[in-house]
C-alpha cells in the first residue's frame, strides 16, 4: 500500500552499493525506517532530500508483514540546511535525533513529538542555543512517558533535592533510609531548589516562550547532567553523540 505523509530525516545509513536506509520521524506513522534505492548516485532523483533534518513530503510503499517500506518519493518542504552546516549546531541536533530514534517505538504515531521536533528545529535555525536542545529533551521525555520525577519524593511526595538515577526520581532522606538495596541508592545527582523550579517551568511553558527564560550556567549544567544520567540509565548505554562531543571539544568550532 502506498502511504503519504510528512517526515523529518533523523538519520541515514549507507546500504549496499548506492542505497540508503533512512529513518524518518513522520507525522502520521511515527518513527519509520525506509529503504531508498540509489540516492547516493550523482543523478538520483532524491537529490539532497534524504540528508539528516530535512523536512519533506514523502511517499513509501509498505506491504503488511514484510520488511522495510520502500521510499518512492521525497519532496523537500524545508531543507534546514543551516542546521547541518554548523558543526556544534549539528551536534546538538544529532543528540536530539539519537534520543528520538532510541526512545520512540517504530510505527506508532506521536504527533506531539513530531510538532515538537519541527518547532525546535525552527527555533534552532534562528538561535542554535543549548537551551533549545535542553527544552527538547524535557518535553520529549514528558511526551513519551519517560520524564524524570523531580516534584517531590517518589515514595512519599515530600520535597527532596537528591535525584536517584536508578529510581528516575527524587527520593527524600527518610525514604532513602528505607531502601534495602545498596544499588538503589547509587547514582545520585543533587539539584538545587532553583534547578527543580526551572525544570518545572520549562516543562509547563509553551516551547516558543521558553527561549525568553534566562538560565544560569549552574542550573543549566545541573539539569542537563541530571537528564543525561537519566537518559543513559533508561537506555542502559551512553549517548553516542555526547561521547562524540567530548572527543571533539578541544576544537573551537565545537565549543560555541
Amino acid at each position, binding site marked *: 500500500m502506498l502511504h503519504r505523509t510528512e517526515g523529518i530525516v533523523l538519520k541515514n545509513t549507507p546500504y549496499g552499493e*548506492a542505497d540508503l536506509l533512512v529513518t524518518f520521524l513522520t507525522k502520521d506513522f511515527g518513527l519509520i525506517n525506509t529503504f531508498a534505492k540509489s540516492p547516493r548516485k550523482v543523478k538520483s532523483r532524491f537529490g539532497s532530500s534524504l540528508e539528516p533534518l530535512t523536512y519533506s513530503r514523502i511517499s513509501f510503499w509498505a506491504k503488511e508483514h514484510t520488511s522495510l517500506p520502500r521510499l518512492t518519493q521525497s519532496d523537500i518542504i524545508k531543507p534546514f*540546511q543551516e542546521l547541518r552546516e554548523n558543526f556544534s549546531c549539528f551536534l546538538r541536533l544529532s543528540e536530539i535525533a539519537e534520543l528520538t530514534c532510541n526512545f520512540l517505538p517504530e510505527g506508532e504515531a506521536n504527533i506531539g513529538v513530531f510538532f515538537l521536533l519541527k518547532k525546535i528545529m525552527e527555533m534552532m535555525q534562528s538561535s542554535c542555543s543549548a537551551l533549545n536542545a535542553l527544552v527538547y529533551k524535557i518535553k520529549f521525555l514528558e511526551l513519551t512517558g519517560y520524564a524524570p520525577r523531580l516534584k517531590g519524593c517518589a515514595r512519599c511526595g515530600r520535597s527532596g533535592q537528591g535525584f536517584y538515577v536508578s529510581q528516575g526520581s527524587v527520593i527524600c532522606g527518610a525514604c532513602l533510609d528505607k531502601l534495602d538495596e545498596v544499588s538503589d541508592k547509587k547514582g545520585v545527582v543533587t539539584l538545587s531548589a532553583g534547578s527543580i523550579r526551572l525544570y518545572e517551568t520549562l516543562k509547563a511553558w509553551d516551547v516558543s516562550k521558553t527561549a525568553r527564560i534566562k538560565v544560569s550556567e549552574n542550573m543549566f549544567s545541573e539539569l542537563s547532567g541530571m537528564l543525561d544520567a537519566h537518559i543513559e540509565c533508561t537506555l542502559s548505554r551512553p549517548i553516542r553523540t555526547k561521547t562524540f562531543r567530548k572527543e571533539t571539544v578541544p576544537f573551537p568550532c565545537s565549543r560555541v
Partner: protein
Amino acid sequence: MSQGIVENLIQQLMKLPGIGRKTAQRLAFFILAMPDEDAKSLSEAISNIKQKARFCSQCFNITESEICSICSDESRDRKKICVVEEPGNIFVIEKSGSFKGLYHVLLGALAPIDGITPDKLKIAELLERVKTNGTEEVIIATNPNTKGEMTAQYLKEVLTPFNVNVTRIAYGLPMGSDIEFADEVTLRKAMEGRRQL
C-alpha cells in the same frame, strides 16, 4: 552435472551489487562455458584480492606492497594531499586525471549518531603526514553530504595549526543534468560557489 554446483555459483554471484537472479544465471553459464584458463584466472584474481590486499602504510589506499604505487611514484606532486573517505574514491579521481598529488584515505567519515568519532578514522595519521612532509595544500574530497561536510569542517579545524592551505572540492550540479531537476540545496550550493568566467 549436479544442479548443486551451478546453483551455488548463482547464489554467490547474486551477492554482488546490482546482480539479480537472471544476470547471475547468465554469468554462471558463461563461466561454465569459459576456457579453463580464463575461469582459473578469474577465481585466482578473486582469492588474491582477499589474500594480498592491504592498506598502504602512508595513505591507506589498497595495495599489495607496504607502500602503494601512488605514494612511491616520485613524479607526483608531494606537496599536495587529497583527502578521501574510501580507497574506491582514489580510483575514480585517478580515472578523471584531474589530480597529480598524493592521497590520504580516512576509511570513513565522522558520524556522531553512529559513534564514528575522530579516533576511528585515519585523522591522526593525516596530521602526522602534514607535520613531517612539508605539505602545502590539503584538498578535502569527502562526500558532499552531511557526514562528509562535518568531516571537512573538523579537518579544517585540526589542520589550522599546521600552516597549510586547506581547500574543499567545489559543490555544484552534475554535468549533463538539467537545472530544472536539481533540488534546492544543491542549487543553492552551486549558486554560492559560482565563479568569474
